[in-house]
């Protein structure tokens, strides 16, 4: 590996080597807040280096691209990791987390996500995906006193291991059909008339199953509500935003490389998208637990993202990337509010504990309402433009029926997003006091809140930036 390649890989190296250093030094000096804050510093340093350094090679080791698209997502995931660590500071203090281990695991997850988004070969895709999946196995069960956390960890472990098997077998079959892992070439075995075509198609089916598990599309989503409920709230935030967003970010170049085959896959994807949108909505309606409701709503959001991906073209890709960002900000914020309310004996999740909370903790409850409204897609919030972009791209590429299903489920989703807000503000019953937030948590929530409002009023610059970094056809 040459110096130029190492230079191009610097942001990921800062994350991964920084995580290793924190892990080792933490063995000698067990200080919680010190390591978490240094993790925040490392994550922001990685984001800055990804933004400022111009890579001199186009590809690292034939596995990872250094295109502006990959750099953009490296910045995004590094910032996400930094914000998550900042958010976890008090949570880790309350629950007596081992600070250095927690910090290094979250940083490793960031490195994995940014490698996945940058993958330009199937090997890179596999390594990036596994890097953060393995980390999440540990992080989900990180709260050692918690039986529900252990159960969530078990469920994610079994589901994740099976998904890994499918992913690896899919990649192996695609390699058998084409003789290459590198992305445009790996698709050659799929051309009409090639005698290896059935193998390649079987490989693609396996890959779709694995991706369905990872981003929890309906049929493969059964682990989602339990894992969301059982995992520590900051980890759930990371899982819901980063791991799903990074998988979708890696799918955009993958679908672009498929060319004509993408059209043939559309019938399968249409079924998955419809099932996810309708099934997720129906399951979210009766929920009385905020984290489970957000889990089912994430299934619906993944359906929308799949719809955007199917629409393809510059419009569809731009809509997908914009949607990943606004969905990520609102979800991180919502789990941030849950984190800041949590106490040593548990997190407030049931709607019963939220009765009249808006009068006792007005700032955080207004922020939570804003995040939920953004997820629902109400106009002044950023989520509106996200949904608008997806449905616009779907209508333009002749997916009218799917777009109609999407718009209808978005209307129905108002019910389950407004319900917690009504509980927060409409009931006069005096709420019992929950945790007072720390300044670190308020900083993260303020950042998410202002971004949700800003992108809802003035999304132009971000959309323009996304249009510039997207891979050119």
């Amino acid at each position, binding site marked *: 590996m040459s110096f130029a390649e190492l230079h191009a890989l610097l942001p990921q190296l800062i994350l991964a080597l920084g995580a290793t250093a924190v892990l080792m030094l933490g063995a000698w000096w067990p200080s919680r807040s010190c390591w978490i804050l240094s993790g925040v510093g490392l994550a922001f340093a990685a984001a800055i280096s990804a933004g400022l350094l111009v890579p001199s090679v186009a590809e690292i080791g034939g596995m990872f691209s250094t295109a502006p698209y990959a750099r953009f997502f490296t910045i995004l995931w590094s910032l996400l990791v930094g914000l998550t660590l900042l958010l976890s500071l008090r949570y880790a203090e309350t629950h007596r987390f081992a600070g250095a281990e927690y910090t290094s695991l979250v940083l490793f997850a960031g490195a994995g996500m940014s490698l996945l988004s940058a993958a330009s070969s199937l090997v890179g895709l596999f390594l990036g995906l596994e890097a953060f999946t393995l980390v999440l196995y540990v992080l989900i*069960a990180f709260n050692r006193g918690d039986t529900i956390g252990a159960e969530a960890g078990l469920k994610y*472990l079994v589901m994740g291991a099976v998904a890994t098997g499918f992913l*690896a077998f899919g990649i192996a079959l695609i390699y058998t059909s084409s003789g290459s892992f590198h992305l445009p070439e790996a698709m050659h075995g799929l051309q009409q008339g090639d005698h290896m075509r059935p193998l390649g198609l079987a490989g693609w089916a396996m890959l779709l199953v694995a991706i369905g598990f990872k981003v929890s599309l309906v049929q493969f989503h059964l682990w989602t509500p339990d894992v969301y409920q059982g995992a520590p709230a900051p980890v759930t935030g990371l899982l819901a935003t980063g791991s799903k967003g990074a998988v979708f970010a890696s799918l955009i170049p993958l679908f672009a490389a498929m060319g004509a085959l993408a059209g043939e896959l559309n019938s399968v994807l249409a079924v998955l998208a419809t099932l996810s949108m309708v099934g997720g909505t129906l399951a979210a309606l009766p929920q009385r637990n905020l984290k489970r409701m957000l889990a089912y709503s994430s299934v619906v959001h993944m359906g929308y993202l799949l719809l955007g991906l199917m629409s393809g073209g510059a419009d569809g890709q731009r809509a997908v990337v914009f949607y990943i960002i606004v969905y990520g900000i609102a979800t991180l914020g919502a789990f941030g509010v849950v984190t800041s309310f949590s106490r040593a004996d548990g997190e407030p999740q049931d709607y019963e504990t939220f009765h009249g909370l808006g009068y006792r903790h007005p700032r955080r409850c207004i922020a939570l309402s804003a995040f939920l409204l953004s997820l629902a897609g109400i106009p002044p919030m950023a989520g509106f433009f996200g949904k608008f972009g997806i449905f616009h791209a779907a209508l333009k590429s002749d997916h009218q029926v799917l777009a109609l299903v999407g718009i209808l489920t978005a209307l129905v989703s108002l019910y389950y997003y407004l319900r917690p807000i009504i509980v927060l503000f409409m009931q006069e019953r005096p709420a019992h006091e929950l945790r007072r937030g720390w300044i670190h948590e308020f900083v993260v929530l303020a950042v998410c809140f202002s971004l949700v409002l800003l992108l809802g009023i003035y999304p132009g610059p971000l959309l323009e930036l996304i249009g510039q970094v997207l891979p050119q056809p």
Partner: protein
Amino acid sequence: MIVPLEHVLFLSTILFILGLGCVLARRNLIMILIGVEIMLNAVGLTLVGASAFWQQVDGQIMVIFLMAMTSAEVSISLAMVVYLNRRKGTVDVRAFDEMRG
């Protein structure tokens, strides 16, 4: 290549399905993990066969990556087995069904 590619693929598909069946049918966490191992070894076999078929080394390098990843996964999941056993005194996955809804 002495062994035809079809035979390799046939064997690895059977192995993969056996492993998947083990994961779906067994309720003991350790047996589930063994099933996953069988699935991943079927993948390794496919990659080695394809690598020999295309006369390339890429597939074999991927097998080494796969082995490294698998060992990391096994160490994490065995740690998980110990942890779960301490919590509930069993590694039967049916004991872990507190969350509903």
